[in-house]
């Protein structure tokens, strides 16, 4: 051990400390964003729940299903997978888990797979590197999802579907089961499955159910996408918060260990110096 070692440990401590400041700041940012997003989602759930139930009942009341058959579920032959990841890293395995799930789904679809529609630059870079077929990509735009953005995204997905480029759209996204566990979900976006119901017969329809259905479609899909964007964003921030909290705690432990080591070395030198001084004092005493 030399003096250099002591200096080096000191330098290491200060470097770990500055990293810790950063991870702690990022954890705090994630917490703040999370609170905001959770509030958004809470307000939005009431809307989504009511709209879904209205939508189901309106579709259930359609008498002539042929009129809306372009949106009704049938066995797909060309499936587009929409993959939603974040634009930033430092959130543990979150992005990779979503991409992994997308790849697994691609394999299980086999020939029915058509292309990926990518949201978030993390998935985009990885898929480009892996040479996947990407239909379109939306990058760095949903740091905080806005309802209008969700609306235009859903309109675009609908357009792709209605042009006949694909006949099924699935969305793979993160879902916050709770603040510690993030899941990856795979939802079928279009087409929709309709359950025929009779008990809405006493309703007045203004205009006919088929026309209400047409008008509801953009609203319904827009709100579905908005919920998915919110959920995946919350999931990402949860993952980031956890990753950063772990990193901060690890840094703290590392600093403790390094400080102990540093003190040991310092103590060693002090002891050695004291011994040297006393020794030489002894020698000098003997000479006198």
């Amino acid at each position: 051990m030399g003096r250099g070692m002591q200096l080096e440990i000191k330098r290491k401590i200060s470097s770990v400390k500055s990293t810790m400041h950063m991870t702690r700041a990022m954890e705090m940012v994630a917490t703040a964003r999370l609170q905001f997003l959770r509030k958004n989602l809470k307000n939005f759930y009431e809307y989504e729940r009511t709209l879904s139930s209205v939508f189901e009942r309106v579709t259930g009341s359609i008498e002539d299903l042929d009129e809306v058959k372009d949106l009704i579920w049938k066995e797909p032959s060309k499936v587009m997978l929409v993959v939603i990841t974040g634009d930033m890293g430092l959130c543990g395995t979150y992005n990779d888990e979503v991409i992994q799930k997308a790849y697994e789904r691609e394999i299980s679809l086999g020939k029915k797979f058509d292309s990926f529609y990518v949201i978030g630059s993390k998935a985009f870079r990885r898929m480009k590197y892996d040479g996947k077929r990407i239909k379109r990509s939306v990058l760095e735009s949903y740091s905080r999802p806005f309802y209008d953005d969700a609306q235009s995204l859903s309109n675009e997905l609908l357009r792709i579907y209605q042009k006949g480029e694909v006949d099924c759209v699935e969305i793979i996204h993160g879902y916050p089961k709770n603040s510690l566990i993030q899941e990856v979900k795979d939802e079928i976006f279009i087409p929709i499955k309709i359950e025929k119901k009779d008990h809405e017969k006493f309703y007045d329809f203004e205009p006919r159910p088929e026309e209400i259905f047409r008008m509801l479609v953009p609203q319904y899909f827009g709100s579905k996408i908005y919920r998915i964007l919110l959920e995946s964003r919350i999931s990402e921030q949860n993952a980031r918060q956890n990753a950063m909290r772990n990193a901060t705690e690890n840094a703290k432990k590392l600093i403790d260990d390094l400080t102990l080591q540093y003190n040991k070395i310092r103590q060693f030198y002090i002891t050695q110096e004291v011994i040297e001084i006393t020794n030489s004092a002894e020698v000098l005493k003997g000479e006198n």
Partner: protein
Amino acid sequence: MFRLKIITPEKIAFDKDVKFVEFRTVDGAMGTLQNRIPLFAALAIAELEIEEADGKRTFFAVHGGIGEFFNNTFTILSDAAERPEEIDVERARRSLERAKVDIESVEEIRRKELEMKIQRALVRLKISEKRERR
């Protein structure tokens, strides 16, 4: 009296007992009192007038959506619903002018979007006048 709920993606804009509601469906103007038979109505981008329990008149600019009357509760689900005092008049005016210019030079697909934009701006301006008059 019946319950009126106006729910938008951002918030619950209105949730109170009311006497009378006047609104516009895509087919034309409609109004409802209490104990109406169940109804599904596709709403137009238009104004909505409410007579509250104490007789007070309240106005909203409603941006389309759907309304359901069931069990003496009228639920309106819309992309946006704004009271006169919430409307940014300047923004609506600017958006109206821009859309009017754009619509001249745009192909068929985008035209419908712009027409809706114009409609939204018009209804906002109309509702915002209710505030100025008061």
